[in-house]
């Protein structure tokens, strides 16, 4: 067997924090042969990206390789001179970052950035490279490949930009590409296109790749073998099919099992019951442009209504209309049969109390200068008028409810909490007002899967205990499946489909629902092949949306 292209042995990486070095990676080995795709998965902080960068002989500022070897095609990357690395990077090793929008230089056209590498490395002349770029754009099925390169980054969509970046990485025909979460920021329908494009081009040029992601279903489509990481240690490595069908370690099994959480089904609501929240024919606009068109749906007591759709479909705008942040232009919102004033400023304290909200980014939803007790205590003090020890007891009770130890967390600042804990504090703040109805705006999408599952279980438990109603905004259909009772599908500011969950997940559905459902990657390595065969090459992702 020939020597592997990338050979990492006993890699130790340390990061500097508070005047001392603390380990990030503790002795990881990695082999990657030519033309092979390795999936690196793990939660945030597992060291996936750090290993990906180390394979290029690169570390971020304040991080160093303390021990071990990294060999690329027999070249020692740890001790290589800067000049030697410069000659390799971009030419034989390329990198595709998570956010293409942040990685392209906004001041230059795509094709100019594309040709920079080949010209710099003397691989091709500018004209040749430009021609090749257009050819790559065509292969990646970018619309209008002859012209799209002459646009600036802000003139193309996120999915297109991600593909243009993949094309750029291919521009010197590298032997190795490192993909660092290339589809995480994209909608499901767009993600398919990028995945299909990446896989096709990697196969065509026989490129080796390291594919970093936290999404198991995605990695199942892309990788030949998978390595699971946990806090800088390797958990296990196996080829994709073995790994999916029979994971050995408990941690891997728990990752796999996340997707199995599903609430028991509830009987449908009484047809003549008064819904807790009823959105009636709401049309809303930012400025002069309507972003919601005649949206109506009901949310009944003790139920969860999931509102799904891609970014820009108006999900969050609907939530803003319910809370009164964006007064609708037409229509209104009823709470227990009574119309709420359109603007939140006109609502009474009692009306405000009944509708609470949990935000997507817990980082920006909690005031960084306040302690947990202040954050949770404020609504209690504000609405219930509790003071002193009564306030303190109530805060402790709320912390117990969200499964955090009051003695430990009461006096901490948000920056001293993990992502999942912050989100729990967000939930506690909403609960503190003792509302009947809570809007959950993408509450799990910024979290790792295991943590997200914990949040979903907590929300489900609270609903059972307190009889809450949820409006659950999400683009992740696995989450919908796990928690919702009813589903509302939105597209371009309109409700295109709605009904109980069981009906929604069973065919026949509306064409758009079908597209959404079928675009969610599954844990089956053949899923993408089957889907592409079914849809036909020209009919995936955005292209399919455009046709409807």
């Amino acid at each position, binding site marked *: 067997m020939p020597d592997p292209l990338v050979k990492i042995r006993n890699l130790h990486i340390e990061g500097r924090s508070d005047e001392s070095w603390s380990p990030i990676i503790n002795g990881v080995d990695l082999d990657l042969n030519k033309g092979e795709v390795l999936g690196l998965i793990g939660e945030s902080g597992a060291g996936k990206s750090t290993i990906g960068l180390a394979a290029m002989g690169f570390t971020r500022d304040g991080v160093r390789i303390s021990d071990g070897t990294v060999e690329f095609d027999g070249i020692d990357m740890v001790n290589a001179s800067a000049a030697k690395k410069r000659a390799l990077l971009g030419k034989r090793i390329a990198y595709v970052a998570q956010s293409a929008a942040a990685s392209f230089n906004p001041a230059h056209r795509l094709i100019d950035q594309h040709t920079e590498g080949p010209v710099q490395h003397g691989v091709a002349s500018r004209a040749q490279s430009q021609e090749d770029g257009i050819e790559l754009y065509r292969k990646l099925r970018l619309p209008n490949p002859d012209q799209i390169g002459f646009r600036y980054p802000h003139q193309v969509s996120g999915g297109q930009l991600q593909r243009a970046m993949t094309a750029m990485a291919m521009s010197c025909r590298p032997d190795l590409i490192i993909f660092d979460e290339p589809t995480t920021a994209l909608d499901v329908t767009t993600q398919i296109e990028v995945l299909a494009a990446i896989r096709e081009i990697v196969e065509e040029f026989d490129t080796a790749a390291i594919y970093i992601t936290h999404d198991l279903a995605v990695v199942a489509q892309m990788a030949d073998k998978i390595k699971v990481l946990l806090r800088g240690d390797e958990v296990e490595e196996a080829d994709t099919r073995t790994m999916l069908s029979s994971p050995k370690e408990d941690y891997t099994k728990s990752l796999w099992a996340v997707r199995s959480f599903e609430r028991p089904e509830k009987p449908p609501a009484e047809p003549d019951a008064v819904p807790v929240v009823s959105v009636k024919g709401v049309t809303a606009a930012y400025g002069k442009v309507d972003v919601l068109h005649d949206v109506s749906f009901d949310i009944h007591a003790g139920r969860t209504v999931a509102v799904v759709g891609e970014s820009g479909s108006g999900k969050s705008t609907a939530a803003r209309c319910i809370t009164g942040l964006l007064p609708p232009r037409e229509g209104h919102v009823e709470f227990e049969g009574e119309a709420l004033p359109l603007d939140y400023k006109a609502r009474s304290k009692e009306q*405000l109390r009944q509708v609470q*909200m949990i935000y997507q980014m817990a980082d*920006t939803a909690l005031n960084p200068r306040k302690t947990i007790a202040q954050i949770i205590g404020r609504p209690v003090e504000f609405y219930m008028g509790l003071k002193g020890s009564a306030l303190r007891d109530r805060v402790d009770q709320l912390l117990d409810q969200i499964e955090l130890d009051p003695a430990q967390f009461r006096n901490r600042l948000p920056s001293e909490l993990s992502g999942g804990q912050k989100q729990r504090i967000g939930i506690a703040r909403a609960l503190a007002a003792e509302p009947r109805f809570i809007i959950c705006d993408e509450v799990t999408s910024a979290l790792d899967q295991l943590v997200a599952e914990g949040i979903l279980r907590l929300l489900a438990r609270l609903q059972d205990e307190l009889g809450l109603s949820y409006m659950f905004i999400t683009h992740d259909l696995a989450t919908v499946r796990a928690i919702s009772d009813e589903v509302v599908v939105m597209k371009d500011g309109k409700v295109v489909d709605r009904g109980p969950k069981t009906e929604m997940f069973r065919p026949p559905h509306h064409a758009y629902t079908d597209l959404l459902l079928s675009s969610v990657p599954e844990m089956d390595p053949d899923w993408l092949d089957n889907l592409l065969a079914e849809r036909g090459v020209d009919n995936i992702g955005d292209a399919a949306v455009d046709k409807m």
Partner: protein
Amino acid sequence: MSGWMIFLLGLAGIAAMAFLFRLAGQKATGDAPKFRDMSYGEAFGYMLAATLLILAVWYYFQPKVTEAGMANAGVVFFRWAVQGFLIFAAAAWLFRLLGRNVGTAWTRKLFRQMPLTASFGILVILIYAFVAIFAGAIAPHGQEEILGAANVIAGGDPALGGDPAYPLGTDQIGRDILSRLIYGAQNTVGIAFITTILAFLLGGTFGFLAATLGGWLDQLLSRAVDVLMAIPSLIFALLLMTIATVWAPKLGIPLTWFMIVIIAVIDSTRVYRLARAVGLNIVVMDYIEAAKLRGEGLGYLVFKEILPNATAPLLAEFGLRFCFVFLTIAALSFLGVGIQPPLADWGTMVRDLAQFINFAAFSPMAAVTPLLAAGAIALLTVGVNFVVDWMLHKSSGLKE
């Protein structure tokens, strides 16, 4: 050979040395990454720094008196500067050492992470504050007392006509310069402090209001601020102060109060800009939205939600703004419309003694006199800026 030729030859020499230095380093260390990956520019920088260091050392050891018997003022001042720098650095180091070993756990941690520049700045600020507060007790004479013959030569050397009772000399009408410097700290720094606080109260309040409420109030305030900022601030202040000198006696209000309000209003426009910009970034946060949806009032939003998150940049701006205010007061006093005699003020002292700078070439000691007040201004400005830099660095969360 002309000066230009020497300069060019020197540059060429440094350029050649840089090349040799890098090559020698690579050979001597067996291609250590430090030398192997060193760019030519970096090597050039090292050589340039080394050359300048050698030149400085050479200049430092030049004789104080030229062969013609004249004082070599350049060397004298350069020696003072170097000695002053070393003494200040040592003082700052000792102060930091003290801070690291004395005090609560929190302050000790603070001092452990502190760069030397910041501890120097804090030391300077503490000394100034002490002097300003206890000026009456420290100063050997009153600020308005006329004590004797004018002798501006510092040092009190009887051979030069000085009196050891007045270590820094006396000014043209015989007032003790040391006492006036000490009282100047009280007058100049105290007034600057009050003015800056007033500027922040005005600018901060309106800035946060504009950021939170937006709409026509924001437009009105911002355009008014634009108008004020369009006029060069020193000239505007000078104009208003000239008007105030006419009004003050009529209304029976001391001119100093006018000056405080005028400078505070002019400087509050800058504070307003900053507070509004910082506020706008905070207002879009979800926790503000959550507070609004809870039904919180404007006061709670501004003081409990926004202000705590804006303290770091505002505090840094406070330090910087304090320097500007302080310089403006000194400048106005220098021009004759600021703090009025006989009150001691550093700006006025510089103006009164400025002509002695002309004697620097003959008698370095005579030129020191006006520089004492100017140095006091410079030292505080540098100190405050060091502390502000450090605070900005801390609040931005950057790591070295």
